[in-house]
Structures are given as C-alpha cells and as structure tokens.
C-alpha cells in the first residue's frame, strides 16, 4: 500500500489530530457530574481514607453521608466520629461457667449495630460443645446451629465468639488497602467506604469474626438504630466487610455505656472494661480468675478473655 503522506496537515480545516483531540475532550466532559446527586456520587467515589481526612473533610463526608442515609433509610442519623479516650484499652471477659447459650447477645448486637437481617449477618456466633469431649481449642466438635427446646442442654456448654480485637491482628496485616486498622483504644475498625471487598481479611481471621455483605444489607425501617459511629454501626454497603467493634458508638464516651451484648446477657456472663485501669472488672477477672484466650498459639494476642468464675 503506498499512500501519499500529507506533508502539510495544518492546511486542512480539520485534520485528523485535531478531530481526535476534540472528540476525546467531548467524551471527557460528559463524565463531569452536574447537579447535586451526581456530585455526591463523584465525592463518594473519590472519598479519602478516613485516617487521611482532616476535620473539614470529615465534616463534609458526614454531611454527605447523613443525606445519603436519609434518602436510603428515611431516618435522621447521628454519625459520630468520637476519637479514642486517652488511657483506655478495651478488654472483654467471658465467663464460660455461666453462658447458657440463649443467644440474646447475638440479637441484641444485631439490634444495636444495624446488621443486615436478610441476608442475615451475626457478629456473634455461639458455639455449643459437649462436656467431656475435645476442648474448646479444637473446634471440630463445635456446633453453631444448635436449636434445642431449652438451653442449657444437659451435657453441653456454650462459648460465644466474636471479634477478639487482637493486639496483633492478622486481618490488619493482610488488608491490601489499609481499610482496616487497630485504633489506639485497641478496637480494630473498618472504613466501610475504603474497603474494596477482596475478603483477604476474612481468610486471615482465625476466629471467623469478619463478615461480608454478599448483597445489599436489608433492615426493617422500624428497627434501625440512628445513633451510629462512622467506624462502627453505621449502615454498611454491598460488598464490604464488617465486624464487632465493641460497640464503639457506646463505649467511646465519657461516661461510656457497656456494649449491647454485655447489657443484655441475662446471666451476667460478659464483662467489659479498661485493661489499663487496675480497678476495672476485666483486670479483676484476669488477676483472680484463670483466664485463657482462643488460639493463643497463633500469637494474635486477643483482648477477649475467657474464664470460669466457678
């Protein structure tokens, strides 16, 4: 093929190069959002990582989020961004001699933390073990789906498992985008607007504590809790990971409330407090009871202590 090369392209009214440039610019301009709704989509897409936001960024993100949540859930949310309290590292105690496996903690958590009801997400799993068989460090005999007429069943004991808020969390280690990290007060949190949903953290967690939104979370409007924390119980999105945050919206106040699971337990099996306070209940448990943690050989150093008070 031999075509004459045009040696003076600029003499044409519109040469090929100009046309291509113009077309490209035209297409690009179509993508610039116009109007509030599109601007919000744009902002959502390019929202910064929570830890890199300054006060103004946070304020505008909260404002945008309140509007999004109002449109979605027809309710006014109070989205807190309370920082960790100084001198606090949260610890949790669970008395295995008391737990009867009633699962009230599971559903109190669901109520407080806006989990999706359908598809169902539970942050707490209660495991039933047979007395006298393999001990709790071997989970092969554990049953999550027990449903007897009454609990506790004869010959069984119960162990609830939720996020252990590890001091050396494997989920934080493997997250490729730093969407999950450990805060100063020891709570491991997720920025639901940064998570890309790769689920590496779920593979890495030895306690099955992290849960994925396989579809759009659905909650009955009458059951929505509007007192939320950005890193905690605000409604999540499809395709992101979530988990227990020690009720960060309750505990990070002065005075701070107990997590919902602690308050609902009818037999007082759950203890919570500040590990750095020598007078706290959790310190009393650690110092006076024989405490152990799950899968300690993995060196994740959980802050969730199991013990037997009697």
């Amino acid at each position, binding site marked *: 093929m031999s075509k004459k090369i045009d040696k003076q392209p600029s003499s044409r009214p519109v040469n090929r190069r100009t046309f291509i440039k113009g077309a490209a610019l035209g297409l690009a301009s179509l993508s610039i959002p116009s109007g509030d709704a599109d601007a919000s989509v744009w902002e959502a*897409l390019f929202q910064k990582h929570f830890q890199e936001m300054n006060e103004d960024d946070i304020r505008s993100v909260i404002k945008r989020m309140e509007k999004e949540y109002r449109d979605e859930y027809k309710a006014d949310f109070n989205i807190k961004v309370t920082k960790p309290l100084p001198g606090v590292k949260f610890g949790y105690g669970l008395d295995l001699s008391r737990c009867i496996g009633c699962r009230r903690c599971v559903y109190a958590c669901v109520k407080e933390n806006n989990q999706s009801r359908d598809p169902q997400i539970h942050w707490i799993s209660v495991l039933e073990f047979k007395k006298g068989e393999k001990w709790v460090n071997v989970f092969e005999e554990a049953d999550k789906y027990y449903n007897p007429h009454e609990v506790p069943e004869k010959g069984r004991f119960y162990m609830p498992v939720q996020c252990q808020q590890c001091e050396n969390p494997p989920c934080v280690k493997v997250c490729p985008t730093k969407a999950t990290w450990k805060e100063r007060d020891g709570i491991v949190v997720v920025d639901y607007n940064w998570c890309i949903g790769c689920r590496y953290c779920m593979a890495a967690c030895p306690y099955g504590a992290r849960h994925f939104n396989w579809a759009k979370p659905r909650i009955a409007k009458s059951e929505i809790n509007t007192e939320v924390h950005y890193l905690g119980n605000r409604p999540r999105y499809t395709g992101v990971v979530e988990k227990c945050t020690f009720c960060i919206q309750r505990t990070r106040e002065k005075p701070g409330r107990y997590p919902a699971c602690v308050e609902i337990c009818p037999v007082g099996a759950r203890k919570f407090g500040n590990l750095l306070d020598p007078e706290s209940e959790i310190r009393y448990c650690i110092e006076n009871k024989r405490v152990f943690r799950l899968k300690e050989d993995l060196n994740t150093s959980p802050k969730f202590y199991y013990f037997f008070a009697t």
Partner: protein
Amino acid sequence: MPDLVQPIRNLFTTLKFITKGGKWYYGWLTFLLIFIFLGIGSYIKQLEQGMIHTAMRDQVSWGFYISNFTFLVGVAAAAVLLVIPAYLYNFKPIKEIVLLGEMLAITAIIMSLLFVISDLGRPERGWHILPFIGSMNFPSSLLAWDVLVLNGYLAINCVAVFYVLYRLSIGKDYKMSVIWPIVILSIPWAISIHTVTAFLYNGLSARPFWNASIVAPRFIASALCSGPAIMLILFQIVRKVSRMEISNVAIFKIAELIAYAMGVNLFLFGAEFFKEFYSGSVHLAPMQYLYFGLHGHSNLVVWMWGAFIFNLTAFFIFLRPKTRENLVTLNLACVLIIIGVYIEKGMGLIVPGFIPGVLGEIYEYGPSSLEKSVALGIWALGALFFTLFLKFALPVFTGELRFRAPDSSD
C-alpha cells in the same frame, strides 16, 4: 510532537488484518464471543445485585474466581521454563518460540487480573490498592506485593514481546543488548510472581492447610507442569495454522522438563500426604475432606483422586521417551496434566483452606452457575485475546506482515 499518522495507520492495518480469516477463524471468534457476552451479562448481574449469586459465603469466602486466578498465575510464571534453557543454555530449537511463551504469559496475567477484579466486592474502589494515589499496604500485605509483581511481570513481558515484534515488523532485527537484561530480569521475576501468590495463602496462620512450608515449592513445581503443557498444545496448533516452524526437538525437550517438574510435584504431594495422615493430628481434616470426605461431605473426593491419577499417568507418559515422542500420547498427557493441575491447584487448594472452617464449621462449596459463567467468559476473553495476538504476531514472525518504518518516505 512525534508523527502519529503512520503508527495509527499501522494500527488500523493490524486491526483489519487480524479480523480477516477463514470460516474456521470466524467460527472460533463467534464461539468465543458468545461466552464473553454471557460472562459480561453475568458479571453485570453480580455488580448490581451483589456476590450473593456466587456460592461463596462467610465460611468459604474465596472460591472459583481465586482458584482460576491461582492456576493462571502459575501458567504465566511457566513462560520462564522456556526462557531459562533458551537463553541461558542457548538451546537453539527453543529460542524462536520463547516469544509465544511470553505472549501466553501476557494473556495469562491479564486473565488472572480479570479474575481478581471479578472477585472484588467493590471493584470501582480498586484504585485504593495503588501506591501513592491509594493506600497500598506494602510491605505488610501479600496482596500488595502481588499487585506489584504481577503488573511488573506484565510490563516486562509486554516490553520484550512488543519490542521484538516491532523490530521484526519493520524488517529489522532485535538487539540482544535490549532483550538480554529483560530476559535475565524475567527469570527471577517469574519465580517471584508465583512465590508471592503462594505466600498469599502461606502466610495465614488461621488456615493450617495453607500455613505449611510445602505450599510455595509445590506451586512452582505444578506451575512448571501446567503452563508448558498448554504451550505444547498451542505450538502444535500454531505450526499447523501458520508458517511458523516449531521443531519436534523443542517440543520433546519441553515435555522432558515437564516430566521432571511433575516428578517433583508428585514427591511433594506424597510428602504432604504422609505428614498429615501419619501424624494424624486434627490438622489432617482438610486433606481428609479432599481425599476421603469429612463427616459425610465428599464432593471433591472424586475430583482429587481423578487429578492424582491424571498427574501420575501424565508423569509416566512424559518420562518415557517412547510415549513422550509420540504426538498422540504426548497430547493426551498434556490434556491430563492441565486438568490435573487445574483441579489440584484450583479448587483443590482454595476450598480445603476453608473446610473445616476456623470455628469447625463445614460449608461445602461448589461454584454457582453465575461463577461458572463469569469464569468461562474470562477464559473466552483470554482465548480471544491470544488468538488475535497470534493472528498479528505469527505473520510478523514469519515475515508475512511488514510495516513501513516511520522514517522511510514513499
């Protein structure tokens, strides 16, 4: 401003060239396009309604997509099997077909990246993983390493392939001084992409099936079987449909190398098997699930034994010169080994990491129809890409397609 007219004209020439062919060619492209469109449709459904249409759940949070990803990274890494003997030992018969191996590597990397993207819950946030614009968790997260090494490997192979093709296409020869450093770099880089992928699983102490030192060596051994086996089949197709000459000596040499790689793979498998079943600790549960069933769950048992038999058979076929140098048995062995490694390194690696789960639960996972549709779509896309790539590269290689050099005048 460089003159873009000629390269753009060349691009259009290329596009016209690669879309022209006989009825078999159009038939093949149509066949692939059907699966591609079905796959795209399924993926759009997944994007709109969520990954609940896959069979993955909290208990088995990685499945078919990541299985395919793992297998394909191995295929991509195996291009090195051709590179090492070709350039290091100057094994003449292999040298000219290294290019095809690198083209396969490019295709395999693109496919594995597509599988990762289709596995993400929020793919539009994929930029979060990038360094500087996002917040890449390097060096802590192995996935961050994987992003870097996979894209780096893609870049290396693209540079090598496009440089050679460009030089050949304008009638010039390629300079070894440019290719040689790229080749030397690509050898450890190829090993590293697969080692990093192996470490992705290896580093998780929560999953005892993966947290074993044997994982990374087995990855390399099985990759060096599956990738070259695919290439052997492709070479035979290539020399049939084009004027490219690929000597039987090269093919049989690669087959011999595959035999050794599978030998190592089988030995390592035996070592794993012994360790779990002889020691008899609770950690044998995933192996037991795979080969004998666990508490009544045995969906993968037939597949795993099938894979083992295929691999063993292929090993002996490749090992004996008589069967290795017979094209019928050779091709049979290639197919057997591809299927065997695909099962072993795909579902046979990913799923038992989650069975039994960390809290003892057994959720038996098998891919849903949506996952199969998306996976087929990506495989078809890869096949289409490789076909078009070959349609362009082969004539360039054999001298049938030439462009005018940019500095020549009419």
